[in-house]
């Protein structure tokens, strides 16, 4: 990963985040976003995460891999359960990592 590339990406992140943080001060009003825009943003965040997760878990080397060799997929299921029950990032990460370690030791 070239440093140049990452630097530019961080710069981009700073620009868009600062834009969102400062926009209301420029506009000087507690205006609501148009409802559709608000909906779109509300959906976009889980959509991005899902669009990252599904392929990461299911697509290996350009093909769908549902076999037992695909650790990530099968560990993801109980991990999701923990996330669903606890709504806690720390517990989720801990259980996922531990379960995978366990799985790898057993296989």
């Amino acid at each position, binding site marked *: *990963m070239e*440093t140049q590339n990452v630097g*530019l*990406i*961080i710069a*981009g*992140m*700073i*620009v*868009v*985040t600062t834009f*969102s*943080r*400062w*926009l*209301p*001060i420029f506009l*000087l*009003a*507690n*205006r609501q*976003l148009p409802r*559709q825009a608000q*909906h*779109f*943003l509300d*959906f*976009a*965040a*889980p*959509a*991005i*995460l*899902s*669009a*990252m*997760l*599904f*392929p*990461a878990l299911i*697509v290996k080397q*350009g093909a*769908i891999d549902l076999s037992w060799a695909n650790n*990530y997929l099968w*560990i*993801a299921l109980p*991990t*999701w359960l923990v*996330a*669903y029950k606890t*709504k806690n*990032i*720390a517990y989720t*990460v801990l259980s*996922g*990592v*531990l*379960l995978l*370690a366990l799985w*790898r030791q057993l296989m």
Partner: protein
Amino acid sequence: MQVEKEARRGIVDGLPVILGYLPYGIAFGLLAKQASLTLWATLAMSAFVYAGTAQFIAVAMLQNQQTLWAITLATFIVNSRYILMNGALTQKCLQWPTWKRFLVSYYVSDETFVVMSNRHKSSPLTPAYALGLNFTGVFGWTTSSVMGFAIGQRLPNLDMLGFDFALIAVLIALATMLVKDKLSLIVAGAAGLIAIGLNLLGYANFSILVAALAASVLGVVLAWKRKTLV
């Protein structure tokens, strides 16, 4: 001096916040190191972007060889909630000089927003308080990120310990917390399926953004239809 009192109060109120940041900051630093980011990059993200969710997603996307535009757009979408938060916050501070409002709102976070809103209920927000709070926050977040990075440097390859799964686990946790109703579940499902499809067709690089945008538009259309059917 009143200013000193306020600033000190802001710092004190910031301490529990950075305690909460600690595990996530460390996790971020560690994951950033795993993703081959440099210390400077990790530090810069935490110190100048200061947005945990976006930082985790960015690291995941970097590992996925996503483009500058994809990561920037994803960051914008995930951080757009700051528009609303600072909209509410700036209303409470209209009598402040404008430059102070800019300064304070730069380092707003989910947690400090709650702290400031609560504070304002009992005692009007002052720039001194807000600056004390915010700079405590960014100091704590950046420091824990660096700590996590340092830990990542010293640890051997953790694959046997399953640690390579950590980033995916974070994404699973975030996704689960963000899917709050049936409609967002449908959107997430659609995004995931479209992304898989694009991946299989060989368009992995665009898959995340195209899938997310398409699914979000679908969500907006479904939400709109729901309103008109009622």
